[in-house]
């Protein structure tokens, strides 16, 4: 049925616009609309991230639509709840691609869950999977056709954090990471980066079960080891829990963490205990007074009034901005191939939200730079200029 309807629409389109838009237009694209699909954890524990990430991307697409869309096409952003569950993600992928017939998947959430959908999305259906809020080193080595990201890898972030601790003069560093591979691997690269930056530094790593609430024994274990800095690779609740336990024991050991925890949730949960926590951020601070950030705050206030400006919605806002820019630069007829080519035309594209991005067939990761930040009086403040995580800065 759908194919017949599509063919009929195509025929009508040919009669109206002439022959140059011939059967080349990709699925999910009409003269009036571009369909993009996404999955987010909108239920379950991880929805604390999924809800704002969806709101940020929604806000940007809505704003663009109200401004007339991309070359006259409105963006229809279809978000499915994947509950951070691989099976539900596969279901979402099949619905988005099989039933909704989207052009591409954008801002998909979750490293494990998204990987579960790859055999279907990337291999069988060859649908672009762009700017995910997810990623692991092996996703991009070697580059896979259609997989493009504007997010610095967790491994690189952790390495940058480790390097930062060494540069701060720390000599005895304890890395505390959750046990799943998504945390374990960044933990390992932090250890490696510390060793590389200062061969004489003492570094230890301990692994903690993901979802641990009672951090008392871990804090006691950490205190016994008496490090002069702690790098924690875990979710924001756990960073806050550890900080509270440490400060309660009157320990002022500095704590470093990576991008996912650079949100206002950390000071909200941790209060005074997380004051002074250092981190790296994908985006510029959400409180900056630049035009791009003003636009972000205005869009969020208008389209997602229940969301306060924060790093996670800002990041997805930035991702949406990169996607729209690639759509703008894509040649007609717009289809999956020209969409990807649109990304390749982005060279040092500055969204004002993320550091400049550059894509090429051999460069699926659009950027490798991060902003260092520190929590002061409950607000994240920038420290120095953005750093390139792949260089020895």
């Amino acid at each position, binding site marked *: 049925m759908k194919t017949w309807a599509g063919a009929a629409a195509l025929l009508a389109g040919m009669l109206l616009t002439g022959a140059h838009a011939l059967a080349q237009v990709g699925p999910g694209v009409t003269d009036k609309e571009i369909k993009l699909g996404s999955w987010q954890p909108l239920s379950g524990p991880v929805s604390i991230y999924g809800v704002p990430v969806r709101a940020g991307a929604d806000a940007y697409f809505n704003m663009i639509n109200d401004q007339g869309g991309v070359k006259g096409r409105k963006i229809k952003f279809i978000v499915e709840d994947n509950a951070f569950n691989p099976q539900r993600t596969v279901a979402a992928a099949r619905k988005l691609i099989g039933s909704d017939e989207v052009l591409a998947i954008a801002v998909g959430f979750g490293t494990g869950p998204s990987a579960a959908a790859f055999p279907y999305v990337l291999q069988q259906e060859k649908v672009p999977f762009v700017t995910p809020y997810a990623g692991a080193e092996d996703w991009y080595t070697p580059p896979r056709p259609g997989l493009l990201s504007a997010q610095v890898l967790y491994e690189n972030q952790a390495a940058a954090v480790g390097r930062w601790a060494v540069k701060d003069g720390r000599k005895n560093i304890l890395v505390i990471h959750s046990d799943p591979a998504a945390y374990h691997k960044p933990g390992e690269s932090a250890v490696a980066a510390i060793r590389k930056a200062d061969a004489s530094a003492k570094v230890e790593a301990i692994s903690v079960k993901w979802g641990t609430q009672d951090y*008392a024994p871990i804090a006691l274990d950490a205190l016994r080891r008496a490090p002069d800095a702690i790098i924690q690779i875990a979710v924001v609740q756990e960073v806050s829990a550890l900080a509270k336990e440490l400060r309660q024991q009157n320990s002022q050991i500095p704590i470093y963490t990576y991008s996912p925890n650079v949100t206002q949730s950390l000071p909200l949960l941790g209060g005074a205990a997380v004051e002074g926590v250092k981190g790296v951020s994908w985006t510029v601070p959400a409180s900056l007074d630049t035009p791009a950030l003003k636009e972000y705050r205005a869009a969020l206030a208008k389209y997602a009034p229940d969301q306060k400006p924060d790093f996670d919605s800002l990041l997805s806002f930035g991702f949406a901005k990169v996607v729209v820019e690639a759509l703008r630069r894509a040649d007609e007829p717009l289809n999956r191939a020209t969409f990807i080519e649109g990304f390749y035309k982005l060279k040092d594209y500055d969204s004002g939200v993320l550091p400049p991005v550059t894509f090429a067939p051999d460069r699926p990761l659009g950027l490798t730079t991060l902003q260092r930040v520190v929590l002061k009086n409950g607000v994240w403040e920038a420290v120095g200029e953005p750093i390139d995580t792949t260089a020895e800065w």
Partner: protein
Amino acid sequence: MGDLPAVIASGLVSGSAYALLALGIVIIFRSTDTVNFAIGDTATLAVFLTTSAMAAGLPPAAALVLAVLIAGLAGMATERFLIRPLGAGHKSLFIALVVTIGLGLIIHAVIGVIWGQRPIVVAPVATGTVRVFGVALTLNKIIATGIALAAMAAIAWLFRFTAIGVAMRASAEDHFAARIIGIRPTVIASLAWFIGCGIAAIAAFFLAADGSANANLTLSPLFRAFAGVFLGGLTSMLGAAVGAFTIGVLDNVAGRYLSANYRDTIVFGIIVAVLFIRPSGFLGAARKERV
């Protein structure tokens, strides 16, 4: 091993929340043979409602009382409208269990819709820390432990020295016995669900004050409370409380000395070992099969 007393103290303090939840589970199970999986969500809902009241200016101590009342009434309503219609007896054991799972999902979703996914910070009843065996414990946790112990003492008194308490105990042994004493079984069931969910709300309230109020507040503590219940015996209130404290300590000891990765597995491994030696838990009533 020098910090063992500190680890144990901290484990006992964590265990007090598990013990309250465990006690709630056992009181409800003894009255209506229902394993109430929604007890944590009911308590969490009560805490969320009181955070709204606290935001409007209610002091923490009054909020605690309010949370207990709300959870208790919600528990009574659950028993009256969802459990009682299912009928009594072992046939409905798993049906009632699945109904409470369903109720838990509903409450969880309602919390998500009303309060969103962001955690809500709850003001603790008191701030400050106290040193016990060289480990600093927050005053909030100490008070929580104190209230937990006081609540347990009150429940012990209720069940031992009041007419209704004695009737409730008798009813747990034999549902007809209470009728003979002259108290309607439905009253006993309502009261048990009120007390059970009410004391669970105490646990949830202090957990929230310690961390933050979120929809998954009681997820992991409830899991440990169930572990304590099975360790101590599903039919023994004392056993459940002791079991839950044991789990709190074991969990901390395992996390500190053995592995922060395998805390659950170690704790459950110990329970399974205990159960193989005493199949009804160390204080549970052994069901002797008639030959």
